[in-house]
């Protein structure tokens, strides 16, 4: 039997506000444990939350960028559960009136057409702390720095049908969140993570199968593998005549398999109720309109503009607009060199090549973004040739060298003195009498060889076109 996999995602993204959602503590990643805490976020008796208005603004922006309706009267609820990383023993979240509802984003599907993935809701909540196991003491240590870091939870409808679609959806969300500047989306730091709900059903069936959930997947690879593995497991079960149990499963990315964590019967009763310490939030029409006006150009629009206005190939624009970091580099470079096509070629070729070779993510590129455009300009002005430029770019990428200074220091500029080129070529011809004779004897290929020798004599630092022309003249 043929099966269809049905997937819904809950994507959690940490917002990049300077301070936490309910207190003034910093949100910086990687600080020493428990140095970014106060009575509010560490759950001291008597402390009270005060909402950071930037969180509301970021949530509205995210809702608008994902085509959601913005709830004008929204409020917070308490989700009660005990865990040592949650010092109040409740999470302030939103259950009944989430700030954004009923949106969608578009992803490319297998046939390279556009597929719309519906978003059920986006709600605001606070993150919990982190527990670290200390094997020496056989104890768990709590770090509350992350407590109260603002989160948005973006809940999709079960519209995804494959691991590839799920990955494309997360990539699209990531791109949007980066474009609108609400999150740095660093999956390896946990600022973007997903819970996946997976079920399978025979193709053509009307009803969904029983779903399972895997929580806190923090890489695209883990999301793809967990979905593929879980779908295969469920299909295997059904094929053997068994049934899928509704449960939460733990995904072990190292072993590439999941195991049961807790069943529906053990599901926690979170005893939600309206948060009494925070008044309801009214969002005005003017506020929404201002946020709408302030939205930057989003990936789809930008992509279309690159194709129609700049004449870039569709494939290239898809790659470049997929990351705000590539977009910034591209726009900077094309401004600087005045040649968008050339800038796009460099991104598709050298930049992606270096990223891949060094296993670097676009957000972690650390060189001066001006350097690429300046390097392209050096090629365009015939100061260096393309081959040299590629070598220089490798240095720019890895060591953030200044292109002009580097070319100067290493004597890489093209030789522009015609006399010097002619002299070098004469010497070369004198040493290659045999080839010269062959050429004069009508063997055209010999010219190619002589050009190569000429370039070599000039250490590659002369314009190839000019070398060819001069050689032809000399050989006449």
């Amino acid at each position, binding site marked *: 039997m043929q099966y269809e996999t049905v997937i819904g995602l809950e994507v959690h993204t940490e917002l990049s506000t300077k301070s936490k959602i309910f207190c003034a503590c910093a949100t910086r990643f990687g600080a020493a444990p428990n140095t970014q805490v106060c009575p509010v976020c560490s759950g*001291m*008796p*008597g*402390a*009270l939350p005060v909402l950071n208005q930037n969180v509301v603004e970021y949530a509205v922006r995210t809702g608008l960028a994902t085509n959601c309706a913005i709830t004008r009267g929204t409020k917070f609820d308490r989700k*009660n559960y*005990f865990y040592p990383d949650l010092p109040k*023993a409740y999470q302030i979240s939103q259950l009944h009136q989430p700030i954004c509802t009923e949106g969608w984003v578009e992803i490319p599907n297998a046939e390279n057409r556009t597929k719309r993935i519906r978003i059920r809701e986006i709600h605001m909540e606070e993150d919990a702390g982190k527990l670290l196991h200390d094997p020496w003491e056989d104890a768990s240590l709590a770090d509350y720095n992350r407590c109260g870091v603002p989160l948005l939870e973006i809940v999709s409808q079960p519209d995804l049908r494959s691991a590839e679609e799920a990955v494309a959806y997360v990539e699209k969300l990531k791109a949007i969140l980066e474009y609108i500047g609400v999150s740095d989306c660093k999956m390896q730091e946990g600022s973007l993570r997903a819970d996946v709900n997976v079920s399978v059903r025979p193709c053509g069936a009307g009803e969904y199968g029983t779903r399972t959930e895997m929580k806190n997947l923090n890489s695209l690879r883990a999301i793809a593998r967990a979905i593929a593995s879980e779908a295969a497991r469920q299909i295997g079960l059904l094929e053997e005549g068994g049934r899928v149990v509704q449960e939460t499963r733990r995904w072990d990315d190292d072993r590439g398999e999941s195991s049961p964590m807790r069943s529906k019967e053990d599901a926690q009763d979170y*005893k939600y109720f309206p948060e009494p310490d925070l008044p309801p939030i009214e969002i005005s029409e003017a506020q929404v309109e201002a946020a709408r006006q302030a939205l930057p150009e989003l990936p789809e629009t930008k992509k279309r503009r690159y194709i129609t206005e700049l004449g870039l190939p569709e494939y290239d624009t898809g790659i470049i607009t997929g990351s705000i970091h590539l977009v910034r580099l591209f726009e900077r470079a094309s401004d600087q060199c005045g040649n968008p096509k050339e800038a796009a070629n460099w991104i598709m070729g050298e930049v992606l090549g270096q990223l891949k070779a060094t296993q670097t993510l676009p957000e972690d590129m650390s060189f001066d973004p001006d350097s690429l455009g300046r390097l392209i300009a050096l090629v365009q002005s015939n100061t260096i040739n393309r081959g040299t430029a590629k070598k220089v770019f490798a240095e720019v990428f890895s060591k953030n060298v200044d292109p002009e200074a580097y070319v100067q220091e290493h004597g890489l500029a093209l030789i522009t003195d015609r006399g010097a080129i002619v002299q070098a070529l004469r010497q070369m011809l004198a040493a290659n009498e045999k080839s010269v004779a062959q050429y004069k004897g009508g063997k055209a290929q010999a010219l190619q060889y002589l050009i190569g020798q000429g370039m070599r004599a000039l250490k590659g630092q002369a314009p190839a076109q000019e070398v060819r022309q001069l050689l032809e003249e000399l050989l006449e």
Partner: protein
Amino acid sequence: MSITNQTALQLAAQLRSGALRVSEVLDACYAQIEAAEPTVHGYISLCREDAYAFAAKVQARLDAGEARSALAGVPIAIKDLICTKGIPTTCASKMLEGFRPPYNATVIERLHAADLIPLGKTNMDEFAMGSTTETSAFGVTRNPHNPAHVPGGSSGGSAAVLAAGEAPIALGSDTGGSIRQPCAYCGVTGLKPTYGAVSRYGLIAYASSLDQIGPMGRCAADCAALFEIIAGRDEKDSSSMDFPAFSAAAALAGDLRGKRIGVPAEFLGEGLQPAVAKALREAAERFRALGATVEEFPLPMLAYAVPTYYIIACAEACSNLSRYDGIKYGHSAAGARDLLETYILSRSEGFGMEVKRRIMLGNFVLSSGYYDAYYKKALQAKRMLQQAYFKAFETYDMLLGPVAPTTAPKLGESLSDPLRMYLSDIYTVTVNLAGLPALALPCGTDENALPIGMQLIGKPFGESALFAAADAYQRTEDAPLGRL
């Protein structure tokens, strides 16, 4: 007149004039504390060293002619659920025994800025859950009027130390009557402010949507002066509100001529002790003599008040008290072998019976499948009750009623019958549910010389009218006052 018999405002005037030194007032208070505490046990802890250290600074300012408030230099007792930086704050619970908060409540910051001097932390029902101060983990407080009787609760310690002359003024908190009822039992005056009038930042939460900190004293004028200091919006408490500029002086200048006072008929029904009803009628006469009209009117919904209150309060309490898990602060069970045992043992050992009862009630009403039947219904009843009050205020300037059905019961009587104890909250809880201000003040004594209290209930942010009425009443000849 001895120092410990005077009102806070009288002491403040003498401190300003130089007739009294701050240290003399402190000496007198601590001497009275030593004399009375073996019987009363109104304090859980004292902060004598901090008090004298701060007193020196306050004295220097007074000597320089700088009085930072109308109560500058006056010592004050603090209910032990208000966070005081570095000073033990226990909520009268074993769970928080030895807990020293790393920060001050906003009201404490305001007291400091106004140069009031904390004497110590007063006893209470554990986590403010109780009506007698008997659920304290650190021993019962006794009523100074008769040590065989309770002082009321949960702010029983604050009321008792006022009545016993162990402090001239105090802070309490009121979630369902916890300021007003002990004031009534101990013959002192206290205000439950409009919800949002006083910052709750640093008030250890029982029921967040009902809790309010309020002033307690020997007379309405003292309470008004203290209220002026603590009231007002605090950016650390999102539920605090901009209070239309409150001035104690302006409030007390008001009078009762032409004011209309309504008495809810249901407040005079079955179960009211005859002496309380009689005292209330006499009080009504005094208000009439001061120029007000007093009449009865029907206030429906009273029958739903107690269940509504306990559902909402317990629901919020079970969530608010979840943070006491034996991990970060407070009691942590020594014998726990794993995480679940840490939770179960720490909470089983740390909380007393009444707290456990309310946590279980709260968890029950919030449980999936019961939420709509209990919590949601209670919120609806709360709104209807609020509307009934607002309707009454279309006719009346303020309302008058008893605080409790009886005078202070004997020690041990209430705990044996929790349901009866809950029902005795009937006249006080509606005020919290509706978010209204209410001022409790003495209006006589019963046949056993135990104080009787009444309450004046006002419109939201109508504290000024309540203080004016209570002050006018307390200035009438032979007005019933607390023991002075």
